[in-house]
């Protein structure tokens, strides 16, 4: 069964790049343009993985992650956030909000796929 991934990012080109990489690896990808859109699309369904940027208009990534973790249905869904550098402070905040792991920008497509495989299994 194809794993479904939600990507949340206000940058269209980054969304496209992530989508091309993940669909190339056989995942099904849904896109959201900001935290509010992401929350709306995730609520009521269950994605296998959510990949999200943190800095977005209309609800930032941290708020979206916190809101998602309030929903019992989302328990256990891996959430990977994109960090702009190896910022320990940001990582701690995101982990506290409920994120599972991270990927440092800029990243190569295969790094993204490796992280996806890490949390989803191969």
């Amino acid at each position: 069964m194809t794993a479904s991934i939600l990507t949340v990012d206000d940058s269209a080109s980054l969304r496209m790049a992530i989508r091309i990489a993940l669909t190339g690896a056989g995942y099904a990808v849904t896109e959201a343009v900001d935290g509010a859109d992401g929350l709306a699309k995730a609520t009521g369904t269950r994605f296998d993985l959510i990949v999200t940027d943190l800095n977005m208009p209309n609800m930032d990534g941290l708020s979206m992650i916190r809101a998602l973790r309030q929903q019992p249905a989302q328990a256990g869904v891996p959430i990977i956030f994109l960090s702009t550098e190896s910022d320990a402070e940001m990582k701690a905040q995101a982990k506290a909000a409920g994120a599972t792991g991270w990927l440092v920008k800029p990243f190569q497509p295969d790094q993204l796929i490796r992280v996806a495989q890490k949390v989803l299994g191969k």
Partner: protein
Amino acid sequence: MTEDPTATFRVEAGELLDQVEQGLLDLGHRLGDMALVNAVFRGLHTLKGSGAMFGFDALAAFTHHCESAFDRVRKGEVPATAELVSVILSARDHMAALVDGAAPQAEGDAILARLAAAVEAARGGGAPAEAAPVGAQQGVRLFFRLPADAMANGTNPLMLLDELRELGEAEVRVRTDTLPPLGALVPNECHLGWDVTLRGDITREAIEDVFIFVMDDMTLEIAPLGDAAPAGVVPVAETPPATTIAAVAPVAAPAIVASAAVSPAVENVRVPADRLDALMDRVGELVIAQSRLSQLANNRHDLLLRSVTEDIERLSGELRDTMMVLRMVPVSSLFGRFRRLIHDLARDTGKAIELQTSGETTEVDKTVIERLFDPLVHIIRNSCDHGLESPADRIAAGKSETGLVRLSAHQAGGEVLITIVDDGRGIDRERVRAKGEANGLIEPGQQIADDELLGLIFHPGFSTAAQVTNLSGRGVGMDVVKRTIESLRGAINVASEPGKGSTITLRIPLTLAIIEGLLVRVGESRYVIPLSAVEECLELSLEDDLRSRGHSLITLRDRLVPFVRLRDLFSTGTRPDPHQKIVVVATGRERVGLVVDQIIGNHQTVIKSLSAFHRGVGSFSGATILGDGNVALILDVAQLVAMAQPREETLRAAS
């Protein structure tokens, strides 16, 4: 920019491994030389210590066994034997593989077994050697526990266990000691811990990578398995690796004879190769911009501007020359690698082979060095496989039992000459002729000059040997060798005396990237002719042009020189300029005049290579970017000369 310590270790490990290899090869010739034994021991010792420091636990463990074995030789308990040296050489290869992270466990165990046997044999039997416990248990035992909310936050312990299983042979046992009673259990929470035993080359790095997302919140305990313990717990206090590595280098150098000439007390700075390449690119672009500036300045009558522009020309030329020198590397590094090759070839063919080298300090551009490796290996293999005779045959022929292969390098003019000489049986002309006829390259009975006959061996598919050896996965054959040398804008020549041996000569130009060029115009396009090939430039008057319609020869100081109208060759379809010029170019003994519409001037040419589509197009060896951003193709003088030759001969014959 922070340096990556692991990368630095890899570079230094590489150097240590080279030194250990050279030391072992020398020791093989002089088994009693304790200075060599000590040098090898120190190299192994340092490798072990720094390996452990940088987390290369498997390397440290493996090297430890070799070091212990060698320690016994050092202490005089066991004599050095050829077999021992041979095993440690294999061990060294395995260590190199461990540094790269691609070493099969079984191979390491096999080598350690051979090592134990070799030490035993050296002792002449008796109590079992303590060195190299066979099949040392390598691996780790770890325990981990995740925070209670880990699963709710998307961490899946099953995925982590799967990742651990990929690292090696795994045994997993769960610990349920902290499970709350059922009534108090929240299903989302994780209260389990796991004991995992992993067998294999397991590094701390790999384990931490598995747990990277949860590292800060979890409990993780790792301990090495079995008595491979020394690896994991080599006391860091042992000797700061930095100073030890530095100490080994100068001390080992005098002990390791016949390796690269090491000048004492020269201050060196280590620069990553890609930084040098980036610098080279910048210099290339600077040259282009400077030539553009010169063009502009020459069009203005501003003396001050011109004067500054001249300064910049001079400085940029000097910078370019300095860059050339920076990229030069002595061929000794290349020759050094062949010692091992000869050693292995001698063993494989059962022949006694000696390698002599001279001119190791001759310097060549570093990119050239790398690309020369495969061709030289092929040539040396040929000499050893087919050129040199077996010891019995050599004695029967009145030669010494040991075959000789001599590698030498020296600079002459703007070139480096590398020769490979062997004193074997020489190239069998009859076999070459037979193969040539079989391949349809020559007619049976066709008269052919000796050097042309020998030249046949460079044809694709031509191999008088039954076996085809596969170097680095790429196809081999003298045709590939020739093509590689030519891609370096060099030339290869073969000379051979039956019964006495063969000599192969490679000529490589000193600089690859930037040459002095002559910019010319043909029709509406511009081309560059390498200035080093240009002998002279003449006017071709309109009358001479018309007069020589039928034949393309011009008399140049009592000599007939063929010429090529580039306008025709390139089918420009344009009318000739009233003041055409002939640029006379030469390669070796032959020359040709190239008729162009205009000589624009000198141009410092940064050579860019052509894509596969255009590489084979006869007349061009590359391209360059002019000051105005347009592309100009660089003429391949050797090809043009070759193209013009037959006409000269037939014309001479006809007249």
